[in-house]
């Protein structure tokens, strides 16, 4: 069974982002970019499946500008076998990404697709569910644990704790934080990754309309909270909470 994983290039989670002065978005020039952390978890899970003999090949998918190739290389250095890059300089919203992925799934016929539960830039938490819908496949979102057999047993992180579901294969999985701890790529593997193939496609060639459905009218700074005061003693804290804030 082939496994397809999605890897999105996002602003690194350690970067303190800045909103552009013209309110059209956030500053991305000269900002450190990385693979979306949830996608590192997706790649790790797929590689482990291959190591256990449950997967035959791991394909890393990314959609976006030319630099997405770097993100795919990272996945290849972790252990993915090859990459598929859909080159696009347009703003790709989740529905468009899901349609592009569907086109690649139709071509590659993987038995499982693993994507991150959310990208930490746009925080949409949609792409995996949308892809499952377009394919008519089952979906195992917010996965904490996966077990592949006849189907796939998924332990999901839900509001009240954990939930166990059994899905028919093929399926789409979205990763949550506790699914695994992604490995770091070793230097020899980084070198090897340079020789692994990355196929480049375009939305036009795949016949997918990626026009955005949501128009971003403006992007603004959130209201900021002012730092308050430091109190010296617990007695002072309790007094303030009672009499000043009135919350206890």
């Amino acid at each position: 069974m082939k496994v397809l994983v999605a890897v999105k290039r996002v602003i690194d989670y350690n970067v303190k982002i800045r909103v552009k002065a013209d309110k059209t978005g956030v500053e991305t020039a000269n900002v450190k970019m990385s693979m979306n952390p949830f996608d590192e978890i997706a790649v790790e899970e797929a590689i482990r499946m291959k190591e256990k003999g449950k997967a035959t090949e791991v394909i890393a998918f990314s959609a976006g500008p030319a630099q997405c190739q770097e993100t795919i290389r990272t996945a290849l250095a972790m252990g993915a076998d090859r990459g598929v890059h859909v080159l696009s300089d347009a703003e790709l919203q989740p529905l468009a990404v899901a349609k592009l992925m569907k086109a690649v799934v139709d071509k590659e016929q993987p038995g499982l697709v693993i994507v991150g539960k959310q990208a930490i830039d746009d925080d949409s938490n949609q792409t995996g569910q949308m892809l499952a819908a377009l394919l008519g496949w089952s979906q195992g979102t917010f996965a904490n644990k996966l077990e592949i057999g006849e189907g796939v047993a998924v332990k999901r992180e839900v509001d009240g704790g954990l939930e166990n579901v059994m899905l028919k294969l093929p399926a789409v999985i979205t990763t949550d934080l506790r699914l695994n701890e992604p490995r770091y790529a070793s230097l020899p593997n980084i070198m090897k990754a340079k020789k692994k193939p990355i196929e480049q496609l375009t939305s036009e060639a795949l016949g997918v309309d990626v026009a955005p459905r949501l128009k971003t009218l403006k992007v603004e700074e959130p209201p900021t909270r002012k730092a308050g005061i430091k109190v010296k003693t617990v007695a002072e804290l309790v007094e303030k909470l009672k009499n000043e804030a009135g919350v206890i």
Partner: protein
Amino acid sequence: MSVLVVAAHDGKTVRANVANAVAAATQIGGDVHVLVAGSGAGDAAKEAAAIAGVAKVLQAEDAAYANWMAEDVAALVVKLAPGYGHIVMAADNVGKNLMPRVAALLDVAQVSEAIQIVSPDTFVRPIYAGNAMATVQSTDKIKVVTVRPTNFKAAAGGGSAAIEQIGGAGSAGLSNYVGAEISKSERPELTSAKIVVSGGRGLASGENFKMLETLADKLGAGLGASRAAVDAGYVPNDYQVGQTGKVVAPDLYIAIGISGAIQHLAGMKDSKTIVAINKDEEAPIFQVADYGIVGDLFQIVPELTAAIEKK
């Protein structure tokens, strides 16, 4: 056009955040209908009918909906969708699982976690862990929107909407529910608690969280945690507050041994009053705290617990 609010429920009661979603739907305008899909969900439907502002409850009974598998419920929502201009649901784990599937089947975008309704087609939503606010306009005919419950004051009770039985759409046979491991707690639910006590890596062990439980119980508070505390196994995953966990906005949030990473702040910085207890006076959490106390939590927390007891 009417608005369809999809209600998450356990058969007997609808989730508290359904009243927040109804409030958001009321701001959009038009008749508000609530869908209660389930198996033996009569009580939940009655509860939904009592939410102020609801014009009608659609109760869909089908064994397929007993455990709310997204594959099956999405098919039902899609069947109902043509009658509505908007489909709205609270952005909890049930909504996040279901609504993108509905949107894709309708070939429309989804607006995730709206915090403000600007107009029927325009919404404000946080991006980058709440470090930027995007105003987005939907060009789709049907708008599929999840709303962040803490940003919409819950609609009151006292309504008496009619309940219409609509029948189900059966099962797609793609997925089966096996069971759940739900954390049992007498404490108020994290996202609706008036006070939240949260612990981080500074607690150093799961055993030490007992100390926070005692404090939480004195205050009648819910208990939360940072990702680091969950990853370390001190507490279960459903305690996590933050960008990729739960968003809370209580009257009082007490952060104990939490540094205040942006991913954590994203889940709690809308709290009315924030207290931080941390031994590092440079910890970023102090930049959002109304009241900070620098010191060893193992000394301060027992003191605080005792002081509240005396009250």
